[in-house]
């Protein structure tokens, strides 16, 4: 049996994945690149990023400032060499996007404009109105269409990494149209599968953000780094969790409690609304607990008020927010305050990768939100992620191309056997499973609610222990799922089950990593250990898969270069 064979295989068609594919072609135009994505690339969740992409482009800014803001924002859990490389590359990548046609908003002199963002000490967030991710994704995707070397496999769902002799040689993927289980091999494989927000109930992330790439790497033996670091964004719309971008605060919006008071003055007086996300989210929850939040049908909330900015500025800088307010809340943000509450938003943790995206497994790379290259540490600053996708997507693409240009082709034998194993697994554990009684939807919802409750903005030992037990029980129940859909064509119940399988696995790494870290750092706030503890915990968590539910945790040093850890006050 033959299978499709490439030089470089990119799993994921979001900003990181597409950037990687183009970088690989640029590095060596003779390479044959495959891009596998479970949705059409322009549907990837990058599309919903609103606020902007950070790059120190302006003359008054400097690499040092961007690096320091990032490291401090990360609560010193960032690898500083990585941050320093990142801040230098980000402006180049933003300009590259401009050359590819991204409609960046401009200053009157025609240069790329910037806006202030949380935790950034100067204006360095480049934006395309408030649809930055949308424009960036469509720009790279449409640009990628000109490269005949990039072969897309749209709506193909990767279920397993092909690893032989600790060398990654491809993936097994289900072609959703035909239901075909196929092996796609390559000399280098890049994971760029995005985030895992859907393990929580209340999240800004879309349906496809199920942590697949993290689970794939985890199963292949790669460690997941800093999984306890989950970012909660202060301003999500109640009920849907749709994000109201930080740019709303960047442009001058106020956060008000039910007494009409800008309560942040009690928590972060020097930065107020422009503080980093972890601190503001905690402030909001604290206010809720003190009874100073509004009560609504969908829980407590605060007001985000932009009325004083005026219609012209709102329409110029935040048109999509007005659209969202109108469409999803039935308010006009020019006239009404926006109801918001903290919402799970971003995963700092991810597949352990180095500065070029390389993982400990030869031939396997990771980039974008699914990776942890050491940039974001304990808390990502808003707008660093889109730039991260560009910088580290490109780096991974180049590294993967370099490897693909030098190593020999992938042999057929082990692949055939691995494919057979995986096909059998999909059959017996999912499609042909008999006598199951558990609904996927039920288990998923329970997992999401347990995660919200146990691994939210504030955490405790009891809560996390309870969470690990709950997740364990859900895992047992997952063994007894029933799949009603027997069709081979576009079987979304099968993919939902595979995703749930992935999500249960990554949830456990979050719970166990959080339980072990007995301090408060960045987004990880333990009520029982409210202080940061550099002596014991200035280190990365690495979770490795074991035969039991509980991962084996190891720790790695944080690389410090120029910025000595200090108290994180704003």
């Amino acid at each position, binding site marked *: 049996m033959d299978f499709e064979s490439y030089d470089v295989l990119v799993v994921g068609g979001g900003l990181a994945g597409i950037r990687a594919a183009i970088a690989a072609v640029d590095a060596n135009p003779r390479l044959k690149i495959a891009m596998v994505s479970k*949705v*059409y690339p*322009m*549907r*990837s*969740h990058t*599309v*919903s990023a609103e606020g902007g992409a950070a790059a120190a482009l302006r003359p008054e800014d400097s690499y040092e400032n961007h690096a320091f803001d990032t490291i401090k924002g990360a609560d010193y859990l960032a690898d500083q060499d990585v941050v320093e490389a990142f801040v230098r590359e980000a402006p*180049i990548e933003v*300009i*590259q996007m*401009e*050359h*590819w*046609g991204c*409609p*960046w*908003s*401009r200053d*009157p002199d*025609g*240069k790329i404009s910037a806006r202030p963002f949380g935790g950034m000490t100067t204006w360095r967030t480049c934006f395309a109105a408030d649809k930055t991710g*949308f424009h960036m994704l*469509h720009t790279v995707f*449409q*640009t990628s*269409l*000109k490269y005949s070397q990039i072969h897309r496999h*749209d709506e193909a769902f990767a279920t397993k990494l092909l690893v032989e002799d600790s060398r990654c040689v491809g993936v097994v993927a289900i072609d959703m149209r035909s239901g075909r289980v196929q092996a796609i091999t390559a000399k280098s494989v890049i994971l760029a599968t995005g985030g895992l927000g859907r393990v929580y109930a209340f999240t800004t992330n*879309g*349906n*496809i953000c199920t942590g697949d790439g993290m689970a794939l790497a985890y199963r292949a033996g790669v460690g997941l780094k800093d999984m306890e670091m989950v970012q909660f964004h202060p301003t999500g719309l109640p*009920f*849907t969790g*749709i994000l109201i971008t930080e740019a709303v605060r960047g442009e001058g919006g106020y956060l008000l409690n039910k007494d009409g008071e800008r309560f942040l003055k009690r928590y972060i007086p020097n930065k107020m609304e422009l503080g980093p996300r972890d601190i503001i989210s905690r402030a909001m929850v604290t206010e809720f607990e003190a009874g100073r939040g509004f009560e609504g*049908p969908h829980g407590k909330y605060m007001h985000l008020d932009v009325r004083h900015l005026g219609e012209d500025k709102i329409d110029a800088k935040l048109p*999509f927010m007005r*659209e*969202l307010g109108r*469409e*999803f809340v039935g308010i006009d943000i020019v006239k009404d305050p926006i109801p918001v509450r903290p919402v799970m938003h971003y995963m700092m943790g991810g597949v352990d990768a180095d500065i070029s995206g390389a993982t400990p497994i030869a031939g396997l790379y990771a980039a974008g939100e699914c990776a942890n290259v050491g940039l974001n540490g304990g808390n990502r600053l808003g707008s660093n992620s889109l730039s991260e996708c560009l910088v580290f997507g490109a780096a991974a693409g180049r590294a993967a191309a370099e490897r693909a240009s030098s190593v020999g082709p992938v042999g057929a034998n082990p692949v055939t056997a691995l494919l057979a194993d995986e096909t059998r697994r999909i059959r017996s554990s999912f499609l042909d499973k008999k006598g199951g009684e558990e*609904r*996927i*939807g*039920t288990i*998923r*919802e329970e997992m999401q609610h347990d995660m919200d409750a146990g691994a939210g903005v504030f955490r405790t030992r009891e809560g996390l222990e309870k969470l690990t037990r709950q997740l364990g029980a859900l895992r047992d129940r997952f063994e007894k799922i*029933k*799949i*009603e*859909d*027997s*069709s*081979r*064509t*576009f*079987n*979304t*119940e099968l993919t*939902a089950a595979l995703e749930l399988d992935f999500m249960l696995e990554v949830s456990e790494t979050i719970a166990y990593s959080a339980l072990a870290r007995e301090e408060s750092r960045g987004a990880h706030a333990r009520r029982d250990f409210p202080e940061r503890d550099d002596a014991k915990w200035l280190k990365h968590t690495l979770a490795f898969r074991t035969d039991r539910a509980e991962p084996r945790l190891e720790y790695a040093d944080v690389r410090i270069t120029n910025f000595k850890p200090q108290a994180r006050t704003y």
Partner: protein
Amino acid sequence: MAEKRITIRTTRFDPDKDKVPRLQSYDIPFSDDSMVVLDALNHIKAHVDGSLSYRWSCRMGICGSCGMMVNGVPKLTCSAFMRDYWPRSITVEPLQNFPIVRDLVIDMEDFMHKLKSIKPWIIRKQEYPLGAGEHRQTMDQIDEFRQFSECINCMLCYAACPVYGLNNEFLGPAATALARRYNLDSRDQGLKDRLPVLANSEGVWECSFVGECSVVCPKGVDPAKAIQQTKLDTTTRFVLPYGNREE
């Protein structure tokens, strides 16, 4: 108060079993005024019938994957509120004018080819070096093409366009709007490369200006305008002496 309920009928089609699509009815609770049609489908899939297949992701009207016919009108189901239909029942069908792959899932490969055919990337006679920094572009210059750059590829316009329904070879609304997005971009010099596709016999000429594409577009793109402007520009280029200017 008794729980409100609502009847949802959806298209079911499994090419392995069915020759033609059929409608299936579900009676589900309408528990919250903020519910959208997509929430109803998700409720069905999670709690009633796991085999219902459809596409969705962002649930915030930006990924473009959840387009379906809702009571005969092309809509993004994540932005179509149930309260606007209740107590009437809701019929959800796959976007019309497209081949049906499965249940509510359409085949949009045709568009993917068309998108590529209009060369939706910046074309320059001479590559602008990265080291030279960004092109200068004013907000007025961006306003020239902005609306056409807001297309989310949701295919509602193709579902609304009878000309596309009658002749699938027609390049169609969104692809033309995107071509125009690049043609109007001050950084682009690719008009001549795109004209052959835009102005061939299956290109803009096929459009008889039904205009429904722009009516249903959820992002205010106005593809009908893009098409007619392309017709106008193309003819002036060829017919009028001063029209054939160098871009």
